[in-house]
């Protein structure tokens, strides 16, 4: 089409850099609240005996939960107008494409997370590209993320993406 871009130059420059690092403690009550919000009553997340019978040391967090263990605290006055925090994605802003949607996620799980594991996330901006979809132009942002535990063991690695539309 044309050479127009929805990506501000100062945002484009951040490709390849670390967008965010965060750490947090895995908490049984928090992952159980997450699980019941998914109506996921898998005994591995709730019942230590069932988890041990399946080869774990104790109840484990649902694999997808690890991404939420590192979420920080955002003062409400610091939220974007749309209410989102942006902290975990590196506060990338696209003034010409303010409507944001989760794109996709692809995760490899290496180890389970237990109560009180300390998880560190490092998220790198892999790419930011203009795209043309059926409903018009959008920006696709892709991050690569690693999650390690307090023993420096790699727990999970993920590729996640976000779509921003005008």
């Amino acid at each position, binding site marked *: 089409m044309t050479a127009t871009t929805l990506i501000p130059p100062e945002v484009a420059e951040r490709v390849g850099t670390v967008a965010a690092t965060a750490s947090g403690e895995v908490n049984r009550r928090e992952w159980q609240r997450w699980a019941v919000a998914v*109506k996921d009553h898998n005994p591995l997340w709730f019942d230590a005996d069932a988890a041990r019978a399946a080869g774990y040391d104790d109840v484990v967090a*649902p694999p997808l939960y690890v991404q*939420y263990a590192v979420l920080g605290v955002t003062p409400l006055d610091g939220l974007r107008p*749309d209410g989102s925090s942006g902290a975990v994605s590196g506060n990338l802003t696209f003034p010409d494409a303010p409507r944001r*949607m989760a794109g996709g996620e692809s995760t490899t799980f290496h180890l389970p997370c237990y109560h009180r594991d300390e998880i560190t996330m490092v998220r790198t901006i892999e790419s930011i590209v203009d795209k043309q979809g059926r409903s018009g132009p959008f920006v696709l942002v892709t991050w690569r993320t690693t999650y390690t535990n307090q023993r420096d063991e790699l727990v999970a690695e993920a590729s996640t993406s976000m779509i921003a539309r005008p």
Partner: protein
Amino acid sequence: MSQQLYLEDVSVGDALPPLPVTVDETQMFFFSAATYNGHRIHYDKDWARGTEGYDDVLVQGPLQAALLARAVTDWIGPAGRLVTYSAQNRAVAFPGQELVFGGTVTGVREDGDRTLVDLELAATRGDDTLMPGSAVVSLPSRSGGA
């Protein structure tokens, strides 16, 4: 639940038991709370309609992804392991719509000392695929080992 699935039970082409879910705004509220998600498109109807132009508030993409993963972890049983999981948001969903989460076995292969099962996944609404995905799982064998 918790009946164990074994490798010997699985063949390419098998379908996972479909998981039908109609998300309501209570579930959306609790999911946003559990994920510390303040995004207005999930609870502020004026914002969702007026500012973003949607018909209603939107079911969270990560909730759909979690439900699609639940269809897998329910199926593989406690001794199964989720090795990789991938899902892409293709279309929005609104509360009150019946979504069906399911998948198909696309491969069974050796990987060192374990056997992996490849799955193609989808969250659908009627004939629409809202969220295609894939997963790799490991399953125990009836002869012992995983």
